[in-house]
């Protein structure tokens, strides 16, 4: 019962945040001084047809709150309006580029999870030793490399100098696409490995010093079992929370990496649409990223008691 109420409460908070965020995305346009038609048609010929089209799409003669209602109503049905640069539905333009971005983010996510968890766990199990300190220094160094610097260094070294990987485009599908995504995913993963690695380390070091671990060891359980069932399982909570926060960073940083590697994904579409003054596309992508970020964190929040039953009992001591 209380679990259900907790989930409903979280969902309510989620919906409220999404609603307020959509208000911000929609009404941000009203901050621009002057006539909305000339803002939306910047850099284009304001022909009578174009003016009429923009007027119809945005319902500019309606009062602002009705404009919002018709816009959000469309968004909820998957209708984001029409792109000014492609003369196509925004949803179709974005949908076409979604696979590349998903592939990039999933691949980078796997790299972050594998390298981050491994580095953090190895450091924690060797805490205080040279290996621990080297891993920490290595992670900190990686964390200081912004995605765009990582991207150009990877291109310079592995694409141009060594010629091992392509530097441009997303290939012709299948294995070729995976091959094309290796360098971009690595560039995307670099900064985020440090967060997962450090949280894994500190969370596991915390558990290693706990009494229940000592008890498990003194009961004669094998070290591998103790680490898997008693240390790692208890360390997952903070790691998951940080992973949720990474999602926003990954989605935004993908725009940098996609632009650097010439990938036709959603992130590079965002940058290109800003440059080409295609506001409907910008608005839709910003809204999608915010929704994805808020939703992923809500799911992690709701799932936490499933993974860690103590969280349901009011947080409790970790």
């Amino acid at each position, binding site marked *: 019962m209380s679990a259900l109420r907790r989930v409903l409460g979280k969902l309510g*908070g989620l919906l*409220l*945040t999404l609603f*307020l*965020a959509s208000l*911000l*995305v929609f009404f*941000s*346009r009203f*901050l*621009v001084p002057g006539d909305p038609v000339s803002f939306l048609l910047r850099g284009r010929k304001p022909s009578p047809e174009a003016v009429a089209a923009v007027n119809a799409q945005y319902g500019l003669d309606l009062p602002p709150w009705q404009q919002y209602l018709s816009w959000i109503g469309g968004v909820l049905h998957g209708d984001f309006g029409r792109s000014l640069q492609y003369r196509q539905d925004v949803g179709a333009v974005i949908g076409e580029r979604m696979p590349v971005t998903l592939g990039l983010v999933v691949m980078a996510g796997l790299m972050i999870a594998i390298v981050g968890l491994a580095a953090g766990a190895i450091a924690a199990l060797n805490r205080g030793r040279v290996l621990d300190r080297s891993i920490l220094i290595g992670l900190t160094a990686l964390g*200081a*490399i*912004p*995605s*765009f*610097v990582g991207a*150009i*260094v990877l*291109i*310079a070294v592995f694409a*141009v*100098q060594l010629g091992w990987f392509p*530097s441009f485009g997303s290939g012709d599908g299948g294995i070729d696409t995976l091959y094309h995504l290796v360098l971009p995913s690595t560039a995307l993963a670099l900064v985020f490995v440090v967060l997962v690695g450090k949280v894994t380390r500190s969370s596991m070091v915390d558990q290693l010093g706990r009494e229940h671990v000592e008890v498990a060891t003194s009961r004669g359980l094998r070290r591998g079992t103790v680490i898997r069932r008693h240390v790692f399982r208890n360390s997952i909570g903070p790691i998951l929370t940080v992973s949720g926060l990474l999602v*926003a*960073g990954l*989605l*935004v*940083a993908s*725009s*940098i990496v996609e*632009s*650097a590697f010439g990938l036709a994904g959603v992130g590079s579409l*965002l*940058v290109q*649409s*800003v*440059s080409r*003054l295609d*506001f409907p596309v*910008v608005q839709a992508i*910003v809204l999608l*990223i*915010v929704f994805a*970020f*808020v939703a992923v964190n809500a799911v992690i929040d709701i799932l936490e008691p499933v993974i860690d039953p103590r969280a349901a009992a009011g947080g409790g001591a970790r």
Partner: protein
Amino acid sequence: MTTPTMAVTVLRAPRAARADLTFGLSVGVLGVMVAAAAFAPLIAPYDPDAVDLAAFYSGPSAAHWLGTDALGRDLLSRTIHGARTALLAPLAVVVISTAVGIVLGLIAGWRGGWLDSVLGRLFDVVFAFPSLLLAILAVALFGKGLVAPVIAMSIAYAPFVARLTRSLVVAERSRPYVAAYRVQGFSPPWIATRRVLPNVTPIVGAQSTLNFGYVLAELAALSFLGLGVQAPAADWGAMINEAQAGILGGHFLPALVPAAAVVLAVVAVNVIGEEYSNRIGGGAPA
């Protein structure tokens, strides 16, 4: 009793020395960058925008210590001039977001109640927008350049400062010295601004120092994307953007020199911020 103490000092001395060395180096690096930004026209050997088509992509030499770019412009001079926007813009973001965040956090933490709830919800909404995304949206609305992104990033970072300030103020509020001032009849606003605020600002300042590094990297990324400082200008991010074509032709320095400057600046600021928060004790609660 003396032996253990000595053992401890002996064990700790090399570590402390190493931390001091890293800290000293970082202060040095940042100091050089600040000096470069302040006296750029005096220090830079060339005009950063002077095109010399006869000397394009020349490697490091006595004439051009770091070489030249595709248009024969001197990389060292451009990097020195680039320190100006690279440091000034994040400074503006950090100053604005810290000022706004401290005021909002102090109000939320000190007043509590419905005002606290409303502000908390507002912070949640802003947290849903990654700072770089908010900056990109600002460029889409107000056009390319640095002014709109700087304001957008200040808005994005203010809730982080505000939430930290709020949690510190809530902790301070229940301490005996606050009750003592109350009993003596000092007005709550006076206690909040004159007695609580000074106890809170060092920790907030440490966090803001760390924010400086993130903002620097994000604004450079924005210029790299072609949405911030525009191309001919000598800015680190814009320089890397312009140098991308050269990388494919094997000319790495025009991109790597400003990239190294960005990384060095971020590392130096982070080391200084962490050392600062260690020295004021405890550091910022995560």
